[in-house]
């Protein structure tokens, strides 16, 4: 079969070995998956193949051209979607597309046939600024922009991180329709997406561990990709009381005419792990900001740890921990300095902080890294650390906003072990996630659609009620009912 991408003995070193003797081939018309934990060298590989970076050793060809000598030819033939930042947020949908077309001296009309199936879904928003689109729509637009010059190879570097399951599924459906004419090399942390590739390569610490069909690779490295599901701690249910630590009644947050949160009511019991699910733009983050005292509701009322979110929000802040979507530790401080800072912020005594700090680092097997600058740590570690910091002073409730975005399954599992430990200590967990396997780990979940809660209950209750085999199907079923313009 004809080769579209050929990589042979590629090595690249920064302060660490990013790539070490990597060789593989991608056939024309294939969807080839690139998987591996954060820091495995995926982005480095993308940058070398798209001629943005020079390799130290080895060679690679894309569409028959060498990445060094054939640089110009390659740049005309490839499309690249580098993760999150490939759109101009201040330009409209149409202007973005025209801009990328002009870059390759073509027009939108010329490439329209190829992008029509995708673009038709967002065309009605063509005068809207890209920054105002929801996550799923941004990805669609970015894909159109990468395709408008009709490339023969498409590079996608984790295109769907932070995008909800329904939009992700639609995105991959589109990729499949492109497969005939275009070779696709895509990195992804989501297992259901890995399974849709023809073949996948597993990178770990810069080395290629294996290439094969998704099933082969996932089976061969199942300790990484398919860790045994967590056992639900049934004993913890005994500690749960019917006492409600979060009580929400008819909560509304409106921005002008737009009701981001539209009359929601629910309650969370003490010691519970509560999953707060919803598609991008459904209003999860807005609701969470109200509950954490960052923003005021425009209607209804809610109490957290017994305090009203409208008036006593400063008291709420003495009883909660919070880990935001954006990474919330100081990157230029060391691990220990971050922990001490947050310890002192909550008024803990120095001696207490030190002893707790040591215990915590030991439990995380992190003692050697206490004096490392946070920015030098891998993403998975940072997130475990951020979580540990958010529960460092033993709050009543901890709010986690997509804490595991972009992390491989093994690390996510370790993260959830930490969540279970915290829950056992009696901390109530309020968590949002786009991973449906994580939804199954929760005691109860709610699913938000268009600012309203359309279902609430234990994972098993929901599966039975909607007659679906797993949470993914339940979520897809509900999120498809969305009528909100933005999604």
């Amino acid at each position, binding site marked *: 079969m004809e080769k579209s991408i050929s990589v042979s003995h590629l090595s690249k070193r920064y302060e660490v070995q990013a790539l070490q003797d990597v060789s593989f081939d991608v056939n024309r018309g294939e969807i080839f998956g690139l998987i591996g934990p954060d820091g495995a060298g995926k982005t480095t590989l993308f940058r070398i193949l798209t001629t943005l970076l020079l390799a130290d050793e080895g060679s690679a060809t894309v569409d028959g051209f060498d990445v060094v000598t054939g640089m110009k030819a390659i740049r005309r033939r490839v499309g690249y979607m580098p993760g999150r930042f490939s759109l101009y947020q201040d330009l409209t949908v149409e202007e973005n597309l025209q801009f990328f077309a002009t870059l390759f001296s073509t027009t939108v009309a010329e490439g329209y046939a190829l992008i029509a199936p995708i673009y038709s879904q967002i065309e009605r928003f063509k005068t809207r600024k890209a920054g105002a689109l929801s996550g799923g729509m941004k990805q669609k637009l970015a894909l159109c922009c990468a395709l408008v010059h009709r490339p023969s190879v498409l590079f996608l570097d984790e295109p769907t991180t932070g995008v909800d399951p329904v939009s992700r599924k639609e995105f991959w459906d589109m990729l499949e329709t492109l497969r005939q004419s275009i070779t696709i090399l895509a990195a992804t942390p989501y297992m259901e997406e890995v399974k849709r590739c023809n073949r996948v390569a597993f990178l770990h610490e810069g080395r290629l561990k294996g290439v094969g069909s998704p099933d082969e690779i996932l089976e061969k490295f199942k300790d990484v990709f398919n860790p045994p599901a967590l056992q639900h701690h049934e004993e913890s249910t005994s500690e749960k009381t019917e006492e409600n630590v979060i009580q929400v009644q008819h909560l509304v947050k409106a921005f002008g005419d737009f009701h981001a949160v539209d009359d929601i009511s629910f309650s969370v019991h003490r010691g519970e792990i509560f999953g707060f699910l919803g598609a991008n733009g459904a209003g999860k983050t807005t609701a969470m900001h109200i509950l954490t*005292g960052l923003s005021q509701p425009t209607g209804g009322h809610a109490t957290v740890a017994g305090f009203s979110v409208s008036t006593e929000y400063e008291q709420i802040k003495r009883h909660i921990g919070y880990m935001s979507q954006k990474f919330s530790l100081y990157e230029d401080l060391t691990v220990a300095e971050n922990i001490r800072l947050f310890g002192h912020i909550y008024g803990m005594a120095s001696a207490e902080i030190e002893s707790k700090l040591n215990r915590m680092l030991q439990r995380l097997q992190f003692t050697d890294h206490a004096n490392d600058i946070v920015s030098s740590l891998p993403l998975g570690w940072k997130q475990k650390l951020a979580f540990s910091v958010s529960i460092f002073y033993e709050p009543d409730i901890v709010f986690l906003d997509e804490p595991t975005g972009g992390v491989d399954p093994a690390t996510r599992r370790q993260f959830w072990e930490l969540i279970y430990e915290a829950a056992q200590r009696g901390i109530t967990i309020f968590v949002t996630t786009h991973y449906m396997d994580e939804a199954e780990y929760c005691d109860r979940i709610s699913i938000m659609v268009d600012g309203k809660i359309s279902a609430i209950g234990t994972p098993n209750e929901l599966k039975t009620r909607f007659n679906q085999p797993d949470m993914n199907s339940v979520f897809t079923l509900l999120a498809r009912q969305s009528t909100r313009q933005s999604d």
Partner: protein
Amino acid sequence: MRLHYLIYKELLQMKRNPFLKVLVLIYPVFIMCVMPWVMNMEVKNIAVVVVDNDRSTLSQQLVHRIEASHYFVFKGEKASYSDALNDIEQSEADVIVELPDHFERDRMQGKQPQILVAVNAVNGTKGAMGAAYMNRIVTEHLSADALFSTLTDRVSTLYLYNKHLDSKLFMVPALMGILLMMVCGALPALNIVAEKETGTIEAINVTPVGKFSFIMAKLIPYWFLGLIVMTICFVLAWLVYGITCVGSLGWVYLLALLLAFCFSGFGLVISNYNQTMQQAMFVLWFFLVVLMLMSGLFTPVRSMPWWAYLTTFVNPVSYFIEGIRTVFVRGGDFQSILPQLLGLSVFALFFDTWAILSYRKNE
């Protein structure tokens, strides 16, 4: 007390910021060693060509005198006025001096021969100054020669406070204003916007840290930094130019602190209304440049049009510059800078209150 750990955190971050270290060292050196030379208000090196139609002893003496002046660069003699004018058009000369035929003879006979001084006045200041210097040289030359006294001998000028008309003495204290606006206004504002961009500010906003503590922890390190940089500047001014403060340094530091309070408040207001670095940078830049140019830092405020002059009453930088020049150059005391101190205090109070009111932990 939480404040002290928050300040400790800021200091740690400052310590790890390579840009700040460079700033603290390079900035005072640049401000002190380069700026006073470039922002010189004196006009020097005016290119002059001479058309001597007389070619007598007296006329040649005058030419030598022009040649010797350190204000002028002598570009040679030309055969005719039109040749000389050509030089001006080529931008090779700024001033033409034309001496008439029979200049010496007419002088001797007691007539008043006319000397033409033609000046390129595209740059108005340079033209006017060039003409004035040239007049002076010519007058001095002729009066000494004719042995009768001219006006210059009857008027005596006494330059108060700045005997040598050294513009550095005038600029050095005013440059402190720019420095404090940068270090105490722009840096903390950008620091807060940077925390908004990375999302760490959200992590702080969900904690019980009060907005007052958070803001103070941001500002205090920069106030110290500003005063340290200013001190380095004063030491440099003394070492390099021998310029020292005539009045009490205490008043200078008080003025500096008040200006720092004004601009840190102002910077915070901007950071509260802007979500991105880029936006904040543009807004800050706009206001800082306008406030600076309209403050009387470079130009005397009284030569502005009246409406522009009125704006200096709502410009904290003007109060500061007026105040610091009074103390630093003239040796003024508390009484003489009282209006400036009051003005700055009002602005500091206004901006700081606005800053704290507009910072929202809860929207």
